[in-house]
């Protein structure tokens, strides 16, 4: 990467810079003419001093001449405007392209960093460099060449003009330029240093903020917020000090510049005046030189401004780029080159060492062969086991020594070989913020394989994007194409891959988790009519099961259009459906005009208001004595602590004046409460048979009167139809679990699971569960689920060599055993290296490598090594 911004600009935009300069120069005559023309309009046309005989062969009188010149003036204004527009657009586009190129190149560098580098560099530092810090460069790149050429040229022309008028005065006019040229950079240098300090300080702040976000749990656990606040305040103080000093110096430079610029006229007036008085200089010449000098000031000022801007941007560029100049960057071809080298025979380590620069070696003198068609266990004490595993998977590169794969140097193989034929899973794998499915097929996305079809228009848009990418030196692979390498997973297409994923998910004991996720997800019946149809089958089967077995029937209360569901909220009973979007959410019902209209029509408004009043009374009675923030508010109360006083006020007023005098918003407040009532759960004695009857009437009216524009806002419970807004489980139950039945959740869960298995629906639900978003860094999964998902991801791509390092440490013992034997079975006859924390588990492996403090202590078959006196024996007996 270019070490200076000018080299970067010249290398990637020399043609554009020339075009820009030419355009700027071409605009100059027009600009000059538009400045000159007003003078002619005033002097020639209006004053009528020098009226030309004819203009372009036409004879003109004074008025026509005036209009011709004014017309010309307007034309010039338009031409100048057009030049400005074109040049600015060109500059802007050039700047954006160059910025895009720079950011892309920096990101490429991040991908090429050797892994140990990331222990020294935090995302908090890297991210602002690529995003915010380089941002101003785009604006400067367009001005980098054109401004100094243009303004410098103008300046030279003026200086030449003055010299022609009078060499002495000319010399006087520029006499202070060398001094300024010497002084300003010196003053600027200090400003530059401060600028560098400022950037460093800001990076540290970014880093600290990043650390606080990552370690927020620790901050709260250890009550260290004050310490962090003090630290940040201190750092912000540093930045303030630096910035303030920069301002002081910057404005001092400006002041000095202005002063020196005014100094020259001082000499003109005093010396020139003296010369004129003594008749050694003509008065006319002095006036001309003074006018010319005035014109000099503008380009000179522009040049100095440009210089300051240039210094600013030069430093920004250098400071960013130097961070990305890492000596042992991975060779670019390792990332780019396409090759296919099958993993056969063994991986031979010859005298391999690994350590971080400066530190003591973590791994030393490792010489061994790891067979690529058998299972190797890595056990031992002290450091080095995980590093050896990572070296075997080529996640790390050896510091010295060599690893050979057949004839090839393992470190020189491109990632298209090692990243597809080897796989490594560590103890804390990373999942990307996407669906579980996307994370599982992540290991199959190496290159775009099949172009995304779509309309002609889309193809045209894609082509345009690609052209633009080329112009900025960016990647031209289409992110929307199909990148999944089905063949690598041993599949012939998407359907086949699904089957394979289900198998792999089962292998790592993730299927129950995914099944649970699937049950709680919604499915769009238009996109997946097959799933919806089968879920409806399950619903019917569920109904039959419950009818046949009254004991089970007591666990679920089915939705019946003609019966009030005691286990559902009053709101659900009224809607008899699931709200879609915010319109019919429970909290919004009391202020929803349509709902109020329905309640009015069946004569329920007053009843709901009275019920709300009673609920409020009970809530105030029950919860008023509790301290603020008490968990009961969150879990049980219909009214939050903050709202209590308000309700107390309403209740006090109604006690005196009755419900009739309530203000509209107070009515709404009270009427919101009953909608949350669940008769069977809350047992407040408010749900009377009469009220339930009325509510059923309201339910029917709500559905029949529903205006067309509100139809999309609710998905009705229909025994015959799939409810797109409800989860699969709710669709199967088509009802509510009954409150007060012991262990109702697990009992119903078991019944549903049985039905699902009978109808062979489990795979479909697991498939839906694969769409579950895993959250940032997989945070919506448990640690064990993340490990299982990472194992599945590695197994799915069928690597020749699978390297696992404590990859099942988060699993409970019984799942661990299951997963271990499943993986051993799956990898029969294939390369497997496994770092084990229990030496006894190595018994099942063909070869064992026993490490001690970064060196190989023993190496061979388990039975051979397991005799008194060996480290292996010691480790096994210690368990």
């Amino acid at each position, binding site marked *: 990467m270019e070490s200076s911004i000018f080299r970067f600009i010249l290398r990637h935009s020399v043609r554009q810079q020339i075009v820009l300069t030419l355009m700027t120069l071409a605009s100059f005559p027009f600009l000059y003419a538009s400045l000159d023309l007003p003078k002619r309009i005033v002097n020639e046309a209006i004053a009528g001093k020098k009226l030309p005989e004819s203009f372009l062969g036409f004879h003109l009188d004074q008025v026509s001449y005036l209009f011709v010149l004014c017309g010309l003036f307007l034309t010039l204004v338009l031409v100048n405007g057009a030049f400005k527009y074109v040049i600015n657009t060109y500059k802007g586009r050039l700047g954006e392209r160059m910025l895009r190129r720079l950011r892309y190149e920096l990101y490429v560098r991040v991908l090429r960093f050797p892994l140990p580098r990331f222990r020294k560099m935090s995302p908090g530092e890297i991210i602002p460099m690529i995003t915010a810090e380089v941002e101003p460069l785009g604006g400067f790149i367009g001005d980098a060449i054109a401004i100094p050429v243009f303004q410098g040229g103008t300046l030279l022309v003026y200086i030449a003009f003055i010299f022609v008028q009078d060499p002495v005065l000319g010399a006087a006019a520029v006499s202070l330029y060398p001094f300024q040229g010497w002084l300003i950079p010196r003053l600027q240098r200090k400003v530059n240093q401060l600028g560098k300090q400022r950037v460093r300080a800001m990076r540290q702040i970014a880093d600290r903020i990043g650390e606080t976000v990552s370690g927020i749990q620790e901050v709260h656990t250890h009550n260290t917020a004050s310490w962090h606040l003090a630290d940040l305040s201190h750092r912000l103080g540093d930045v303030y000090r630096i910035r303030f000093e920069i301002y002081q110096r910057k404005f001092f430079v400006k002041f000095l510049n202005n002063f020196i610029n005014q100094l020259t006229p001082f000499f003109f007036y005093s010396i020139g005046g003296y010369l004129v008085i003594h008749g050694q200089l003509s008065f006319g010449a002095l006036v001309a030189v003074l006018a010319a000098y005035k014109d000099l000031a503008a380009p000179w000022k522009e040049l100095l401004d440009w210089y300051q801007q240039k210094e600013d941007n030069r430093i920004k560029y250098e400071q960013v780029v130097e961070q990305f100049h890492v000596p042992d960057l991975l060779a670019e071809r390792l990332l780019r080159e396409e090759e296919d080298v099958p993993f056969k025979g063994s991986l031979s380590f010859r005298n391999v060492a690994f350590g971080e620069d400066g530190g003591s070696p973590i791994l030393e003198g490792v010489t061994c062969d790891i067979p690529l068609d058998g299972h190797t266990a890595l056990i031992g004490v002290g450091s080095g086991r995980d590093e050896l595993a990572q070296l075997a998977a080529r996640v790390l590169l050896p510091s010295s020594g060599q690893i050979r794969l057949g004839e090839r140097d393992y470190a020189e193989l491109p990632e298209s070989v090692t990243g597809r034929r080897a796989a490594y899973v560590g103890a804390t794998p990373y999942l990307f913020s996407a669906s579980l499915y996307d994370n599982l097929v992540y290991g199959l996305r190496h290159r775009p394989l099949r172009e995304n079809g779509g309309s002609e228009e889309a193809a045209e848009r894609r082509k345009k994007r690609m052209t633009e990418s080329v112009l900025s030196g960016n990647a031209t692979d289409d992110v929307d194409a199909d990148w999944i390498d089905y063949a690598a997973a041993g599949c012939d297409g998407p359907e086949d891959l699904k089957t394979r994923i289900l198998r792999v998910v089962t292998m790592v004991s993730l299927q129950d988790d995914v099944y649970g996720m699937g049950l709680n997800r919604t499915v769009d019946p238009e996109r997946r009519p097959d799933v919806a149809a089968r879920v409806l089958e399950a619903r019917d089967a569920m109904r039959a099961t419950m009818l046949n077995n009254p*004991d089970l029937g007591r666990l679920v209360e089915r939705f019946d259009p003609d019966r009030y569901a005691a286990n559902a909220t009053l709101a659900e009973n009224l809607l008899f459906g699931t709200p879609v979007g915010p319109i019919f959410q429970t909290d919004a019902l009391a202020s929803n005009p349509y709902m109020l209209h329905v309640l009015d029509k069946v004569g329920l408004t007053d009843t709901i208001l009275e019920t709300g009043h009673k609920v409020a009374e009970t809530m105030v*009675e*029950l*919860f008023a*004595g*509790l*301290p603020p923030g*008490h*968990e*009961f508010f969150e*879990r*049980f109360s219909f009214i939050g602590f903050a709202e209590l006083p308000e309700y107390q006020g309403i209740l006090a007023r109604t006690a005196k004046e009755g419900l009739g005098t309530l203000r509209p918003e107070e009515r709404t407040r009270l009427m919101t409460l009953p909608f949350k009532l669940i008769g069977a759960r*809350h*047992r*407040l*004695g408010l749900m009377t048979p009469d009220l339930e009857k009325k509510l059923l009437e309201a339910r029917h009216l709500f559905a029949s009167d529903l205006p067309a524009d509100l139809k999309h806002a609710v998905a009705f419970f229909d025994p015959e139809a799939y409810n797109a807004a409800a989860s699969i489980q709710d669709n199967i139950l088509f009802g509510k679990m009954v*409150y*007060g*039945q*012991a262990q109702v959740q697990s009992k119903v869960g078991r019944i549903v699971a049985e039905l699902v298995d009978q109808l062979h629906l489990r795979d479909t639900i697991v498939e839906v569960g694969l769409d579950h978003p895993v959250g940032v860094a997989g945070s919506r999964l448990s640690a064990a689920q993340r490990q299982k998902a990472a194992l599945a991801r590695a197994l799915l791509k069928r690597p020749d060599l699978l390297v696992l390092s404590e990859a099942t440490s988060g699993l409970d013992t019984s799942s661990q055993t299951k997963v271990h034997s499943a993986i051993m079975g799956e990898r029969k006859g294939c390369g497997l290296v496994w770092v084990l924390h229990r030496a006894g588990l190595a018994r099942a492996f063909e070869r064992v490598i026993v490490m001690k403090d970064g060196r190989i202590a023993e190496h061979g078959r388990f039975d051979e090594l397991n005799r008194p006196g060996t480290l292996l024996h010691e480790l096994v007996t210690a368990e």
Partner: protein
Amino acid sequence: MSIAEEVNCLRRIPLFANIDTAKLKLLAFTSERLSFRSGDILFEQDEMGTCAYILLRGEAEVIVTGPGGPLAVATLGSNEIVGEIAILCDVPRTATVRASTDLEALCVPKDHFLQMVADFPQMGLEIMRSLAHRLEQTTARLREVLAAQAV
């Protein structure tokens, strides 16, 4: 049965006899009402307890499994509390409790119970009184047994 009735039920339990109606109402409101069929297990001996049960209606047997097999040691009726020891001090259940008729019970989760004691110290006093009373009874019983052995 509504909360008002549950409160009446709670009131008849000596442990709660002297506690304000409002607080009993809160306890009832925050507790889950559970129905058990005859033969259902409320909890098993030796598992860790998470809640105490207040029987509202129906009967339950207390069964202790010793070296000689399971043995029914007591029968509980409505207005009785069972399982409170496990939630006051973290010990496994000392017996199995099984519904001997259809049963309605109020399940008071451990954390709510302790929270209420913390919020209303007077409830803590009542519990102390009731436990001291039981300890006194047990000690008296022990004395009787020891006296019988001495003879």
